């Protein structure tokens, strides 16, 4: 009960801090706005009827943008903001454990990312009868979790919000751009298959093209492998310096 109370308090603090930080909250809004605008532009260009390949492109854009911008930036920048404003140490010297801080920090971004993924799916123009919702939610949840853990790594390494953005950019180039442009190049498409963002965008593209999508062993290995690797990297960094280096 005590642990739950502390976890709730940390999650509430994070919710207030993130939801009132315009620089962070622009991410999810931008994702939805971009998907909506690109859909309108594609509709105009294609005479009002979106082909499956265009829906697939819209989905790749929205999902990659959401997983990277909201995960890396939202989680990472929020921790960096706490370091910058000297509230992280206050929280860590108030009997909150590292694990409670970890879960409390990713709870809101995790839920938001999954909601945005569903919103992206709905507004992309895909026929929902083509979507296996359970499979999508499951893969979306794992991908969002990986993204949150990577955001925590960004937060651990960053000294301030600006620094968090800088650290996020290379990650965004790899995990956002490659799946986003995977449809345009065979090589990129191949690499995208080894990224957690690529697994989800590939799944959504499959739905858009009317294929009954099943997770391949490689997809499962990528999701589990990248989740384990990100958690291990986080733990190594955390054990070395904690959330904040002295």
């Amino acid at each position, binding site marked *: 009960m005590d642990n739950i109370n502390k976890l709730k308090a940390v999650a509430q603090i994070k919710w*207030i801090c993130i939801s009132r930080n315009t620089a962070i909250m622009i991410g999810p809004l931008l994702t939805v706005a971009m998907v909506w605008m690109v859909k309108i532009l594609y509709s105009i260009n294609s005479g009002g009827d979106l082909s499956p390949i265009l829906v697939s492109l819209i989905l790749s854009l929205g999902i990659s943008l959401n997983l990277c911008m909201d995960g890396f930036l939202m989680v990472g920048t929020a921790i960096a903001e*706490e370091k910058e404003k000297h509230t992280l*140490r*206050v929280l860590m010297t108030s*009997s*909150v454990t590292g694990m409670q801080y970890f879960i409390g920090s990713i709870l809101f971004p995790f839920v938001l990312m999954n909601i945005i993924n569903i919103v992206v799916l709905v507004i992309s123009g895909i026929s929902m009868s083509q979507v296996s919702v359970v499979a999508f939610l499951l893969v979306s949840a794992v991908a969002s979790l990986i993204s949150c853990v990577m955001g925590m790594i960004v937060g651990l390494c960053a000294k301030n919000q600006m620094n968090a953005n800088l650290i996020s950019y290379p990650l965004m180039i790899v995990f956002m751009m490659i799946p986003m442009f995977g449809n345009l190049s065979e090589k990129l498409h191949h690499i995208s298959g080894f990224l957690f963002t690529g697994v989800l965008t590939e799944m959504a593209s499959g739905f858009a093209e009317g294929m009954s999508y099943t997770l391949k062993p490689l997809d499962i290995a990528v999701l589990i492998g990248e989740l384990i690797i990100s958690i291990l990297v986080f733990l190594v960094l955390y054990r070395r310096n904690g959330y904040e280096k002295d």
Partner: protein
Amino acid sequence: MEQNVLLDLSHISKRYKTELALKDINITLHKGEILGFLGPSGAGKTTTIKIITGQLRQTSGEAKILDTDTVNIDESIYEKIGVVSDQSGIYEKMTVWQNLSMFAKIWRVPSVRVEEVLHQVELYEHRKKPAGKLSRGQTQRLVLARAVLHKPRILFLDEPTSGLDPSTAVSIHKMLLGLKEEGMSIFLTTHNMEEATKLCDRVALLYQGKIVECGSPKELCLKYNQNKKYHLLLNNQEEVVLEQSPQNIAKISEWMQRDEIQCIHSCEPTLEHVFLQVTGASLGLASM
């Protein structure tokens, strides 16, 4: 550990790569006592607090807090102690009330206590204000309110009045003396000797990582009062400072008999003078 000893540092040393930051620190803190750790910047005051509160591991020696070796403490220790550092931040986007109520949830403190503490630090009227809009003095009072919200047994204060205006510093001093009255033990680091003299039951003078002197402020000042002097203001508005000698005693006695003295004070050294005498460096220059 003696029953009313809440903190016991024994031969604590801390080395950062090649630099020895703390050397053989021995000190105790008793229940209801204010202990001042005095020294210039870089003397090792913050390092000591970090070791005691489990944020840093000592290189050697033993530190016990509330009967537990600091090597074995975990997060639960923070339910019994309060920490205020010169860099303790607040959640600027939250209101004053939210800043305290979040921590009240963490410590399972009823909201009536939040109200009580806000009255105590005179911030109740500002409870709905975003904390980011408070003045520096108000912010420091909020930080202090948060640290005492769960009625800790020991309060660690690292330069609590640094950079504050005199009236805010005075109101914080008043609050600290009130907390002491309630039985709270306070470990205070400062480089302000006047503050230490006013608040502390005992002070430890820290210089280059070593305690060079320890005792009550009065005790220390009297111990180093080797050249006794008297400051006099005469009726003709002349001010004189006389050393204690048979001739000067006779002179003072004569002025007294003729009622020529308006006021007379003995000139004991201040803690600053004691520090200077012990270390050969003043507080301002010691860190340079």
